[in-house]
């Protein structure tokens, strides 16, 4: 029984998985894909988990697949990078039960540390087939097709939605959900033992080469499938210029063409490998084509290869220079390209007025009342005093690297804070080196960097920010939370217990207690080797949503006679509830959550109140 629903792209992906009989869903949170595993919770028979990291997620998913159960590992582009080692074996062995890897890309880096095109990793490098959806309804169809094709070809399929697909809401058709098959494992050591053993009957070659040969032969099979795929199509038009749209690029072409007085031929290409004969017949009467794709010139280069091999002379333009080589596409990018190529094309243009001033930029920051702000403030004071260096990591605390705090000097990828601090210490920088890392990042792979630092007695002070959740991406639980994604009680893998087991100094502090954090850090500086300061308080925002009081309300007021207008509370501490009115600090009482912490921030005692009070004494 088909039914229409208004679903977010991420919800449509989960729905498609449920309709395909998926039994196992794994993943690690990150924009743009965080909502996918959560959307599976309405199907109680599906095992859904937030895995420790993306490599683990892919490994768990393949384990299920080898038992003939369909699985879906979900991750963002950086996470797919984390899987690389396993991915480069999984491609050689293939799968049993359908395995569809969902890798969400964030062109423009709207909510990421970098921007990249995962198609290069999963297709050019791992040689896996890819679907690149152009809209929400299509991603749902693609997931379902990908499961049957994955089982037909024995290959892991990848669906690569970009952020605009993940976060769009559209009306889609829903069908019946299907229960997973029962698990059944059959040994197949010739496939599942990836090792350099000689395989009898093949003239002495070893298994890796033989499996590589298998994957190469698979390429012909998937080329044939993509040649017939409904996700590639041609829309005829006039003239010698053709537009090629891949994934969301196709949607932007269709949008833009509504505002142009010409009908260009359009080729929609949403699969990798490409449908070569369709491509060749499309360009028969064309002399130029422009490829619109997110983000790298992946399809553009493949088209050039196809035309070169067949001796077809045609100009292929796209992301390699004609269009911007970085950032997101948009209908405007398409319109600009058309204007540049075809001076006879007319597009209605209205312009935008000048405002007379620059609209100030807005950055994200910690929530008002977040424990990370006083904790980072304390670290800043200690670090400044000792001319320290602070390496940062991914999580809400990373906003401490922006103005006004400007504390962390580095932010790279998940878990890099402690190893980078280790490198700085061994480089002989002769300054205290601190690193800041959150609990979810610690389980993700921060723990490995910490073990390395302990092993080598690196002179590093690590501030572990344990707030019990993955706050930045929307409060997903992790191994230390004591609950799983379904909210069920599970064993807690305690950060503190792990830290204590490493036999290095560990000091536990309340992040709201600026003095205590400072003291702990001052003492840690004197320690030999690695020293850990574990800051423990639950996320305030999550707690308030759960109805748990963390703070005893402690109102504050500014004594304007005492306030010297030094602005430390703004330029160093940076609580959004404090502003300057007529040269004096002022508390925005409707925004203030009465954590009382700023009482300890003001050097002249002008912010008056009882200060921070922990709820329950």
């Amino acid at each position: 029984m088909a039914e229409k629903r208004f679903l977010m792209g991420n919800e449509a992906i989960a729905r498609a998985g449920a309709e395909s009989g998926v039994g196992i869903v794994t993943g690690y949170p990150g924009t743009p894909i965080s909502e996918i595993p959560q959307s599976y919770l309405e199907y109680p028979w599906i095992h859904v988990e937030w895995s420790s990291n993306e490599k683990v997620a892919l490994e768990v998913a393949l384990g299920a697949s080898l038992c003939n159960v369909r699985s879906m590992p979900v991750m963002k582009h950086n996470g797919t990078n984390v899987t690389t080692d396993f991915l480069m074996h999984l491609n050689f062995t293939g799968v049993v039960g359908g395995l569809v890897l969902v890798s969400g890309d964030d062109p423009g880096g709207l909510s990421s540390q970098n921007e990249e095109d995962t198609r290069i990793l999963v297709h050019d490098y791992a040689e896996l087939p890819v679907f690149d959806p152009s809209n929400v309804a299509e991603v749902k169809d693609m997931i379902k097709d990908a499961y049957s094709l994955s089982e037909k070809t024995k290959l892991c399929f990848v669906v690569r939605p970009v952020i605009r697909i993940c976060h769009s809401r559209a009306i889609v058709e829903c069908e019946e959900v299907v229960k997973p098959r029962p698990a059944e494992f059959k040994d197949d050591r010739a496939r599942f033992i990836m090792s350099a053993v000689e395989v009898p009957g093949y003239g002495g070659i070893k298994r890796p080469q033989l499996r590589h040969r298998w994957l190469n032969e698979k390429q012909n099979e998937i080329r044939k499938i993509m040649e017939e795929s409904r996700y590639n199509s041609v829309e005829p038009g006039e003239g010698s210029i053709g537009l090629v749209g891949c994934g969301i690029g196709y949607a932007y072409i269709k949008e833009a063409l509504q505002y142009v007085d010409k009908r260009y031929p359009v080729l929609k290409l949403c699969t990798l490998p490409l449908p070569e004969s369709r491509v060749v017949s499309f360009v028969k009467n064309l002399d130029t084509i422009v490829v619109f794709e997110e983000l790298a010139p992946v399809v553009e280069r493949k088209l050039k290869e196809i035309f070169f091999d067949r001796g077809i002379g045609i100009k292929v333009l796209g992301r390699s220079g004609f269009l911007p080589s970085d950032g997101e596409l948009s209908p405007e990018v398409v319109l600009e390209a058309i204007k540049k190529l075809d001076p006879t094309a007319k597009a209605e243009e209205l312009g935008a007025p000048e405002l007379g001033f620059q609209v100030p930029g807005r950055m994200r920051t910690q929530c008002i009342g977040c424990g990370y702000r006083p904790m980072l403030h304390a670290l800043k004071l200690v670090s400044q005093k000792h001319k320290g260096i602070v390496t940062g990591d991914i999580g809400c605390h990373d906003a401490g690297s922006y103005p006004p705090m400007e504390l962390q000097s580095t932010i790279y990828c998940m878990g890099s804070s402690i190893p980078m601090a280790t490198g700085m210490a061994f480089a002989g920088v002769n300054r205290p080196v601190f690193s800041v890392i959150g609990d979810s990042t610690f389980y993700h792979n921060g723990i490995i960097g910490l073990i390395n630092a302990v092993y080598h007695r690196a002179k590093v002070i690590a501030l572990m920010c344990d707030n019990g959740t993955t706050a930045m991406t929307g409060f997903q639980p992790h191994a230390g939370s004591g609950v799983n994604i379904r909210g069920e009680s599970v064993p807690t893998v305690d950060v503190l217990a792990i830290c204590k087991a490493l036999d290095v100094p560990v000091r536990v502090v309340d992040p709201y207690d600026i003095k205590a954090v400072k003291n702990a850090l001052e003492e840690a500086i004197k320690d030999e080797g690695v020293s850990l300061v574990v800051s423990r308080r639950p996320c305030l925002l999550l707690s308030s949503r759960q109805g748990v009081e963390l703070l005893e309300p402690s109102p504050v007021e500014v004594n304007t006679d005492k306030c010297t207008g030094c602005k430390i509370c703004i330029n160093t501490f940076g609580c959004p509830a404090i502003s300057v009115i007529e040269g004096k600090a002022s508390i925005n009482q409707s925004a203030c959550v009465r954590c009382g912490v700023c009482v300890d921030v003001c050097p002249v005692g002008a912010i008056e109140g009882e200060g921070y009070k922990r709820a329950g004494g």
Partner: protein
Amino acid sequence: MKHDILIAGVGGQGTIFASRILSSYAMAIGLNVLSTDTVGAAQRGGSVTSHVRISDGEIYSPLIPRNRADVMLGFESIEMLRHRKLASKDTVYILNMHKVPTTFTMMGIDKYPSDDEIIEAARRISEKGYVIRATETAERLGIVQSANVLMIGALTKVDPFFSRDKVRKQVEAIAPKFAAENLKAFDAGYELIS
């Protein structure tokens, strides 16, 4: 027909809920909708937008193209102005005069524009605009969390595309738990524009 609505605000102001009301209304009257919201880390105090695109035909781009917005709702004083390129002289806007300072304006690095500058800038975008004090009004009514719904109530007054009664029904249906506060805000918004 098509009707494109941009909602601009600051994380936490309820732009996503407002966009859901408009989308549900469009579906209830049998139209096609494609919407997209800012979600993720940017929600923590950053600039957020929702694009709601309504049509009786196919809708391709989840983002409203330049100059195509029929309606713009500014939940914060300067956030709507940030997206002026989406507007045309025919755009109808409602601007909530509610200032949320930025880090840089607090530090004195940027200047937060004055009310007069903001109103003048909005007037340059389109003549068909309304400046209201939605947050202030909601605060006075003791329902500051519903300022977003107040903006939607105001919208139904100025934009004949939205039927007051049918949008009101959606407000009630989407969040029955908060129906009392939200309907109070909705009606206050409707009354706020004469």
